[in-house]
């Protein structure tokens, strides 16, 4: 039969190849540093810099620097969190669609907030936040869990151990929960921007299914508090 012989050939081929390069590598030399795009940092005069910043500047003057990626720009409109979120929403590399969905979401948020603003009485008008970027950042912050669960196997049984999470992991979980929530729990007729704006506004006010999921995770971590000593890192 064709299948076993093909598999045997592939196995023999793979074993014959020498190990070429490591799995996680990059085209840049490890001495290359990340680029800094913020214009204001460069216009600060030398006296205002702190010790650490002066050291960093000296290091940057000597080492080569990587090229800025196409998503990064010095304009006011480019935000690293928004680009990260757009990349996570992207499917099959269709960045155009993801970006348009993101801009439609921000527009929808602005429209809803403006509606609320115009309907509200005078004294409540100042409390309503209209800037969609501020709402996005605050909603993500509200969705971030503080503590997570890791599975550790001891003596055959797998326990869920509460573990502190790194910043990157917290942001990733918040964004992932928002996106899965929007993709699954909606009617067939509602479009993604509509649903996402709804979720973001709810998260901004500390309500909604994503915040509930975060609280559930916290409760599970509290319940499994007894196993916290299993953590060795």
């Amino acid at each position, binding site marked *: 039969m064709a*299948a*076993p012989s093909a*598999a045997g050939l*592939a196995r023999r*081929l*793979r074993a014959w*190849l020498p190990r*070429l390069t490591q799995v996680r590598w990059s*085209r*840049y030399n490890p001495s290359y540093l990340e*680029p*800094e*795009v913020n*214009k204001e940092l*460069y216009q600060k005069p030398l006296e205002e810099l702190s010790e650490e910043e002066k050291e960093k500047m*000296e*290091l*940057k*003057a*000597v080492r*080569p*620097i*990587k*090229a*800025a990626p*196409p*998503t*990064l*720009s*010095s*304009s006011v*409109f*480019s935000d690293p969190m928004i680009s990260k979120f757009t990349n996570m929403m992207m499917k099959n590399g269709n*960045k*155009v669609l993801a*970006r348009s969905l993101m801009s439609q979401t921000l527009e929808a948020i602005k429209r809803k907030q403006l509606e609320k603003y115009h309907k509200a009485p005078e004294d409540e008008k100042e409390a309503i936040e209209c800037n969609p970027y501020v709402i996005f950042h605050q909603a993500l912050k509200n969705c971030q869990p503080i503590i997570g669960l890791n599975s550790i196997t001891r003596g055959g049984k797998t326990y869920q151990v509460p573990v502190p999470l790194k910043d990157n992991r917290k942001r990733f979980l918040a964004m992932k929960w928002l996106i899965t929530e929007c993709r699954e729990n909606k009617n067939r007729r509602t479009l993604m921007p509509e649903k996402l704006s709804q979720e973001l506004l709810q998260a901004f006010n500390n309500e909604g299914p994503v915040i509930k999921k975060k609280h559930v995770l916290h409760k599970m971590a509290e319940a499994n508090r007894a196993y916290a000593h299993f953590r060795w890192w």
Partner: protein
Amino acid sequence: EIQWGEDGRPFHFLFYTGKQSYYSLMHETYEKLLNAQKYQDQLIAQDLPPQKNKRNLAGSRWLTKIELEEMLLEKLTDNDYSRFILLLEKLMTLPCGDMEEKYVQKFSKEVPVQLQKVVIEPLKYDERGVAFSTAEGGRKTARATAVVYDNGTGKITVNGIDILHYFPVLQDREQLLFPFQFLDRVGKHDMVCTVSGGGRSAQAGAIRLASAKALRSFVTEKEVEFMRQAGLLTPDPRVKERKKPGQEGARRKFTWKKR
């Protein structure tokens, strides 16, 4: 070279580890580290402020694995080498006395920092008396040449077509304007570019690099340094990774079948 005496006893106390010179080196370095920590503890006990040692970041690098192997006359693994370098780094963070400086200098090499002084071309003047400068840039398979004119209105033309029509996507136009926006010269220059090869994002990146290189002649040296630190002047080395035999793509393996 025989490393044991007549009675069969080896001379070096770490002979039976197999890599005696490597392990004795690690031993010595760790002893220096402990001494430095004791010194720091004494300083703290006497309530003196902790000293910070200045390391010239520019000129020195650690020995490579091959150079270390030559020094020790033994084979090393990557793991061994990285552990040694980590120890040295840790030693450098503590306030080293002069003694340890000499010891550490044995393992560092001077790198003559000749940050290729790139020659900035002078401005050329065309028939109307307007200053302009040309530069080339590339990204993946795209190659672009850009001509940046002074005293302009901010019009940008690509292959004879306006950028609004050539790059319908907002991200590409943002990339084209990035160098101008960084230098606060958005409406002051005109640009005419030609680009070929690559896809839409690669062409945008190529034009960005070309325009940044061309703008170097219009701008002070400090701003050129700022542009370099913002990542505008390095050509992006990332290209499509080749497909390997025995796999479906560059990384994706064939479906694993149990039998």
